[in-house]
């Protein structure tokens, strides 16, 4: 067998994978190992493959991903806390030919923005919602969120979430799957290569649904928050598999074709 040098191998014709050009060259502001970076790249790769970079308008939330417009090389609008689905509704109705998506965390979508989310889903606006669920308010220092698991420690529940006094976690994805306006509701993760590939397929399906004017597609991505959970990235991924996935099982929740 012929040997090959690394210089011969590193030629453009042998290129298999590189970061998509739809992400800017700015270093991501996220903590090491955070799923946000992977989620950003998946969305941008899907837009790249569909060739709709110049027809897409993204809505950035408030939270860790508030600076998403710095990293996504498309037209973006940043919305007030939790109001991204309302802004997306306006953008889509004014520009029905454009592709519109929101990118939101759980503090944004499932806490302060619950009303906007549920009503946008119930109206069946023809948009895509990407929901990153890490069970905590990551940006502000790891406070308890509506999605925090029972018994899970956070900076405002240092002895673990007590359901009797702090209420039950909100499974907003199952909630909105009940609404007739949603066409595709799924829950995925991005901690392993297999999960990343599945998530990419789900995001692709969501944007294809929007292309066909089918209705609202909702993709939840269960993610880690190693800084907020006070773990290393690898530990946090293992903790997520052991604790988050039993409560937030992965897979399609609603598929209407």
């Amino acid at each position, binding site marked *: *067998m*012929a040997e*090959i040098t*690394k210089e011969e*191998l*590193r*030629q453009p014709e*042998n*290129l*298999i*994978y*590189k*970061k*998509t050009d739809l*992400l800017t060259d700015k*270093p*991501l502001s*996220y*903590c*090491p*190992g*955070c*799923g*946000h*970076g*992977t989620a950003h*790249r998946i969305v941008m790769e899907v837009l790249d493959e569909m060739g709709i970079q110049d027809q897409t308008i993204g809505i950035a939330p408030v939270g860790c991903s508030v600076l998403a417009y710095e990293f996504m090389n498309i037209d973006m609008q940043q919305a007030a806390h939790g109001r991204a689905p309302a802004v997306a509704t306006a953008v889509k109705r004014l520009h029905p030919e454009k592709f519109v998506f929101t990118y939101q965390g759980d503090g944004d979508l499932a806490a302060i923005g619950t009303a906007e989310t549920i009503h946008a889903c119930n109206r069946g606006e023809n948009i895509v919602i990407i929901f990153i669920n890490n069970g905590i308010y990551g940006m502000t220092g790891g406070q308890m969120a509506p999605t925090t698991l029972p018994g899970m420690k956070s900076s405002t529940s240092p002895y673990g979430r007590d359901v009797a006094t702090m209420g039950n976690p909100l499974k907003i994805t199952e909630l909105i799957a009940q609404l007739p306006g949603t066409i595709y509701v799924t829950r995925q993760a*991005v*901690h*392993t*290569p297999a999960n*990343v*590939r599945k998530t990419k397929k789900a995001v692709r399906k969501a944007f294809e649904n929007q292309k066909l004017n089918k209705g609202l597609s909702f993709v939840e991505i269960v993610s880690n928050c*190693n800084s907020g959970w006070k773990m*290393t*990235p*690898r530990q946090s*991924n293992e903790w997520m598999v052991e604790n988050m996935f039993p409560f937030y099982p992965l897979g399609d929740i609603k598929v209407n074709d």
Partner: protein
Amino acid sequence: MAKVKGDIVIDIEKCKGCEVCVPACPNDVIAMSKNVNGKGYNYAETINDECIGCANCAIVCPDGVITVYRKRME
């Protein structure tokens, strides 16, 4: 039997040393360096030539710092 030869290029200045790529590699090609980059992170580096260019490391890398090359050897 045709063999596949791969190689990865890691942008060490953008690597944050999260180690998510290490368990993703089927051939244990990646390990964390003892040296640090400009930000002070122990960056990822290749430690052997077993890479098959599967791109698993690149698609789980949150910061997209890995570029993958692959060639079929006849």
